[in-house]
């Protein structure tokens, strides 16, 4: 091969951004078209440096905006290459139009989204506003809780996205700063092992295959548009989860590291649990263990696959629990939080009598402390003891001023 391999230690101390950049190097991305934005910039910077240092055989395209970045990725993916980029927040928002193009054209692009708040007011810190903005875009969305996940899920994302039965783009999310700029031990794969997991890119309907000319991005009015969208949705609902599970299984065989569509921690006998995403999952796990020492049977459910939403897996995970808190790190703009609504939808029409309450937290990087979570689990236990939700259904955690609660 024309490029150099890199010697890695078994455990490297990497932040989430560098872990993702290393994964892009090891996957040997053909094209990265990128525009920088905090806190995701070091991912594409990292790829560019690896490319300049001859650790990758590929192309880095500097563009004038995130809209152009994703447009470049779409062009390169349609031409028939392995393609990735990264963005956050306002950049993600500017990309939205092209996100729908990518999924509608069934292009297996991997987008690392380093989650950050959306302005106004301007804020560079981590919350899930941008992740939520993308949730109807037809992309597969994976969520990382720590730098190790950000590394591993990139490989899994390429494996799933590029599968010819799937051919849908994937986002790999990580929390801005809390994962992206937090260095922790990351178990690495050597370059050959890592590449073997994703394998050579296998083109499908690639525009550079001149023997088999194809058209991408056509116009379909009311005669065909709905059929295309319905088929895309059908594939998301029926084909993607088994492929993700297969990729998780193969990854565990390869590395020993286990991922699940819905992660369940201490849920076997849990009375109360929180459902959340990102770094909060790990903090909540630690607090749940401490609550058990105090006699409250606490558990944690982490969403690993945000889209397609794991409807049945959530039903299964929550079937025996007595009180559930849905934690949303995004301002819902005049509605219950996304997780509250999705979970309510999962549990409706089932036999559960679980008490469900929603919490909005951590906007603009506001700290979710262990103390907050202790109070939350205590509140859930009080609901269980009373046999009803004693608080309004929507509360805010960690915001100053008069207590905000609704519904």
């Amino acid at each position, binding site marked *: 091969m024309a490029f150099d391999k890199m010697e890695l230690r078994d*455990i490297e*101390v990497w*932040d989430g951004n560098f872990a993702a950049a290393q994964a892009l190097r090891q996957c040997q991305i053909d094209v990265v078209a990128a525009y920088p934005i905090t806190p995701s910039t070091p991912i594409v910077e990292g790829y560019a440096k690896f490319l300049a240092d001859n650790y990758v055989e590929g192309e880095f395209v500097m563009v004038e905006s995130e809209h152009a970045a994703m447009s470049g990725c779409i062009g390169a993916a349609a031409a028939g290459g392995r393609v990735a980029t990264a963005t956050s927040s306002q950049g993600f928002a500017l990309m939205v139009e092209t996100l729908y193009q990518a999924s509608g054209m069934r292009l297996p692009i991997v987008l690392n989204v380093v989650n950050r708040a959306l302005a106004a007011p301007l804020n*560079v*810190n981590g919350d899930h506003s941008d992740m939520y903005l993308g949730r109807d875009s037809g992309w597969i969305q994976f969520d990382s809780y*720590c730098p190790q996940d950000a590394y591993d899920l990139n490989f899994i994302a390429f494996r799933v996205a590029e599968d010819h039965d799937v051919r849908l783009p994937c986002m790999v999310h990580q*929390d801005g*700063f*809390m994962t992206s*700029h*937090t*260095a*922790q*031990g990351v178990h690495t794969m050597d370059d050959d092992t890592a590449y073997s997991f994703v394998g050579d890119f296998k083109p499908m309907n690639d525009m550079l295959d001149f023997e088999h000319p194809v058209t991408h991005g056509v116009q379909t009015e009311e005669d065909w548009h709905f059929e295309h969208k319905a088929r895309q949705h059908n594939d998301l609902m029926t084909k993607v989860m088994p492929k993700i599970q297969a990729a998780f299984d193969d990854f565990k065989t390869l590395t020993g590291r286990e991922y699940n569509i819905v992660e369940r921690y201490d849920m076997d006998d849990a009375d109360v649990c929180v459902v959340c995403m990102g*770094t*909060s999952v*790990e*903090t909540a*796990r*630690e607090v749940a263990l401490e609550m058990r020492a105090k006699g409250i049977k606490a558990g944690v459910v982490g969403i690993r696959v945000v889209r397609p939403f794991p409807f049945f897996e959530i039903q299964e995970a929550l079937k025996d629990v007595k009180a559930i808190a849905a934690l949303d790190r995004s301002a819902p703009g005049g509605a219950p939080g996304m997780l509250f609504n999705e979970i309510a939808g999962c549990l409706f029409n089932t036999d559960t009598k679980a008490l469900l309450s929603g919490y909005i937290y951590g906007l603009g990087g506001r*700290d*979710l*402390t*262990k*103390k907050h979570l202790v109070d939350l689990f205590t509140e859930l236990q009080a609901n269980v003891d009373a046999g009803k939700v004693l608080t309004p259904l929507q509360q805010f955690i960690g915001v100053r001023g008069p207590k905000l609660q609704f519904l």
Partner: protein
Amino acid sequence: MLEIRWHSRAGQGAVTGAKGLADVISTTGKHVQAFAFYGSAKRGAAMTAYNRVDEEIIMNHEKYMEPDYVFVIDPALVYTSDVTINGKEDTKYIITTHMSTDELIASQPKLKGKEVYTVDCIKIAQETIGRPIPNTPMLGAFMKISGMYDIEFFKESMVRILGKLPQKIIDANMIAIQRAYDEVK
């Protein structure tokens, strides 16, 4: 769990220092975490960086910390920031200053009754590395106060971490680390 908070100005190398320390500790089989509060900090703005070290995998991602050690690598921050915030009874403070420990405590009464150590990392860095980058000397002082690792092992580890820098700069950093180790009081 061992927890450390760094008080620094953006550009003085607290993040690099925290990550370097985490890297060294990680090689000894412990679990580590290193992060910082950036905000939209510009060069020179006060900022904090953090280390967590544990035998178990670290799942806590809260930013709130009651540190075991506080490192202050810019001398003025003792007066313009509250370096004792969320401190514990036995929190140890290692502070960069040209003053003696007694003079420092007299000038900042909040430090009274605390376990305070002083070392002039700025001066050491200027005299060895040639630039006021006080992060590596602070780690030398920390090795002395904590007794965490043998100083020779620590210096060898830092040589690897500083690997890409010119040899002259690496050598200067080693002298700086040793001097801070010897001079901290």
